[in-house]
């Protein structure tokens, strides 16, 4: 394909005489899309058009050329749409973006309270499905806010955050089962243990530069998973731990018997399964808010300012007498603490944990939420978690609802197949979002401390995660 240099937004289109005519541009567009389709054919005909199937006498090939052709056609059409979108007059596009940014900024003031209120009121919809989905989203919001301390504030790229999540979950499960302690006693213990691991892992690796730090944390995440899988005598290996105790509300359990000492028995109401689900929802809601509150308070403390200073310029930090190692370690430990809390909650909610829940994909998801949210923005992280975790689920719900309403089998078919393509869509979405909005959804930043009136600064001016 020929080199195509995209004109930046400031490069206004030249006067008409240098532009090729509409027909010429159309032909060029078709040629370009055709080339893309050709590349796509090279990519997808062998991988989609030929399937390796297990036959009675070993593997054999099966043809699925139709599927490959569909993908190639999709690429062709997609490229055409993309080109025509790019070809619209530039100045108009810029004005569009500015107006949109302005509107978003004004809306931003109302989004946070609106989200908070709707999150608090969600259980009153009385739909088990939405409460479960909300619990999942809030878990990721909490993880995102926890990781945000490490990546967004201190600028340390951590690809192994799931390790602390796993440590929290396993600490809770093992302590609760071995010593018979309740959720509320174990929760701080799980958090503290995760924080200890954060310090232990952080201590040797924090001298590393950004990318290297990322890979080593990734390796640590994998090590923890491999150890959990293989240390069968402690963790029961790949089979996982079952019958993890459920949380209680001031000693009241949520069992279905409904006798005295249960939630339903104490309040004299009919015991239902949704009571526990709603209780769990409010537990994670509270934990997430705690994370947010602590982060916001920490940003005003010297420690939090040291984190942000570290992110901006490590050398300057060092020359100003900030102890870089301690600063990094506290960020790592604080992030790990909240990861541990979230892990303990995960264990008590599922009542079952196994190493499969703590794969690299989880780390990647949480990191994606933080980055998509715009590194360091609390509201952005919440929005990103809502979009990444809830978005696909909502899309599926919408499609099946549409299909039901219109008796349309196509929508229903797509809706039932969506879970299969969940991670594929997730990966593609990561790439597309990075290409379109590398700075995340909320890409402005108000400084924590300033002389006089604080001004919003563009994220482009904030050095990110050089971490040195």
């Amino acid at each position, binding site marked *: 394909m020929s080199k195509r240099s995209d004109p930046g937004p400031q490069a206004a289109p030249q006067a008409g005489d240098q532009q090729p005519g509409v027909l010429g541009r159309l032909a060029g567009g078709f040629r370009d899309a055709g080339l893309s389709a050709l590349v796509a054919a090279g990519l997808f005909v062998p991988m989609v058009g030929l399937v390796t199937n297990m036959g009675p006498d070993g593997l054999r090939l099966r043809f699925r050329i139709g599927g490959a052709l569909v993908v190639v056609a999709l690429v062709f059409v997609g490229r055409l749409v993309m080109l025509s979108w790019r070809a619209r007059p530039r100045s108009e596009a810029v004005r569009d973006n500015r107006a949109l940014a302005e509107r978003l900024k004004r809306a931003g003031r109302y989004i946070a309270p609106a989200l908070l209120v709707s999150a608090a009121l969600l259980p009153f919809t009385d739909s088990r499905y939405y409460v479960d989905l909300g619990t999942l989203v809030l878990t990721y919001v909490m993880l995102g806010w926890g990781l945000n301390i490490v990546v967004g504030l201190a600028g340390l790229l951590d690809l192994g955050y799931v390790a602390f999540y796993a440590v929290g979950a396993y600490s809770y499960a093992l302590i609760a089962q071995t010593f018979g302690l309740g959720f509320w006693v174990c929760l701080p213990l799980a958090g503290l243990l995760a924080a200890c691991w954060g310090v232990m892992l952080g201590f040797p690796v924090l001298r590393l530069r950004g*990318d290297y730090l990322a890979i080593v944390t990734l390796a640590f995440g994998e090590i923890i998973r491999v150890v959990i899988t293989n240390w069968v005598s402690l963790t029961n290996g790949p089979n996982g731990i079952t019958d993890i105790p459920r949380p209680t509300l001031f000693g009241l359990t949520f069992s279905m018997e409904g006798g005295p000492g249960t939630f339903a028995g104490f309040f004299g109401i009919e015991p239902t399964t949704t009571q526990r689900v709603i209780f769990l929802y409010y537990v994670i809601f509270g934990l997430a808010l705690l994370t947010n509150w602590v982060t916001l308070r920490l940003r005003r403390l010297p420690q939090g300012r040291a984190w942000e200073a570290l992110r901006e310029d490590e050398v300057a930090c060092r020359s100003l007498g900030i102890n870089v190692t301690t600063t990094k370690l506290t960020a790592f430990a604080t992030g790990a603490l909240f990861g541990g809390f979230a892990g303990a909650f995960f264990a008590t909610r599922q009542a079952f944990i196994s190493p499969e829940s703590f794969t690299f994909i989880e780390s990647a998801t949480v990191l994606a939420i933080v980055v998509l949210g715009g590194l360091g923005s609390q509201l952005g992280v919440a929005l990103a978690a809502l979009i990444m975790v809830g978005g696909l689920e909502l899309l599926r719900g919408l499609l099946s609802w549409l299909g039901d309403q219109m008796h349309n089998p196509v929508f229903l078919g797509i809706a039932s197949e969506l879970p299969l393509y969940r991670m594929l869509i997730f990966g593609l979405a990561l790439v597309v979002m990075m290409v379109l909005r590398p700075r995340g959804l909320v890409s402005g930043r108000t400084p924590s401390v300033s002389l006089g009136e604080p001004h919003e600064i563009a994220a482009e001016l904030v050095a990110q995660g050089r971490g040195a």
Partner: protein
Amino acid sequence: MAYALQQLINGITLGMIYGLIAVGYTMVYGIIGMINFAHGDVFMVGAFLSLISLLGLGALGITWVPLALSITLLFAAAIAALYGWTIERVAYRPLRGSFRLAPLISAIGMSITLQNFVQVSQGARVKPMPALLPGGLTIWDAEGFAVQLSWMQIAIVVTTLSVLAIFTWLVTKTPLGRSMRACEQDLKMAGLLGIDTDQTISLTFVIGAALAAVAGLMFLLYYGVIDFYIGFIAGIKAFTAAVLGGIGSLPGAVLGGLLIGLIEVFWSAYFSVEYKDVAAFSILAVALIFLPTGILGRADVEKV
């Protein structure tokens, strides 16, 4: 002794495969300073392409092993190169000059995409393949332990060495190699001096992906079984190899690959198979902490 010799042979074979993948990491890191996280998955795609090609050739009746292997090698390398080119074009080029995390996240997204693309298109189950070249040489028979050198291992080492020889010639003797080395030293200056840096970077990805596909074919031949997840672990190990050898250094990548292969095999043989990945990852951490420039790497000076 005989047992150790056998492990040495196995380790070198495995190390060759890691070395081939590591070259791709180290080239890309050298030129644009990013960790191409999807590289391990390109290797996995290469393994699948090899499997498809071998099955297709078998169905067509081409069963003479050297011919089938050569066709498969070329086919897998060509298509994987196309994958490498497309990935760079779609996921990395628009982000060049963006903030540092963006390409890494995009690469992680690409890695997840490739894994799940293969899972969806080819199925999640493992794909076993009968050995193409059974048998081998017994080179030493001592105390009831026969040291085996299988034909497959010979084929792997010979192929890898010849591919690496071609690659070394490409980098050291051709105009393309010269522009690659120039870009590695100073991308901006190379651009000012008239080198088409975009094209050079593209070609770096193409070459890296082709080498990864060769590694994929070797992996398929050696283990005889692949699935969509092999790229992740192999990718991290190959990256460890690149770091250990000194990132940016091509001979270092091969050396690091050999070391990682040997360590993994000896660890499995003498300690425990379950924790072989832990051993490899710990080496990564230890290497980065105590030997951050690697064995053959240059120390980079931090400028303020």
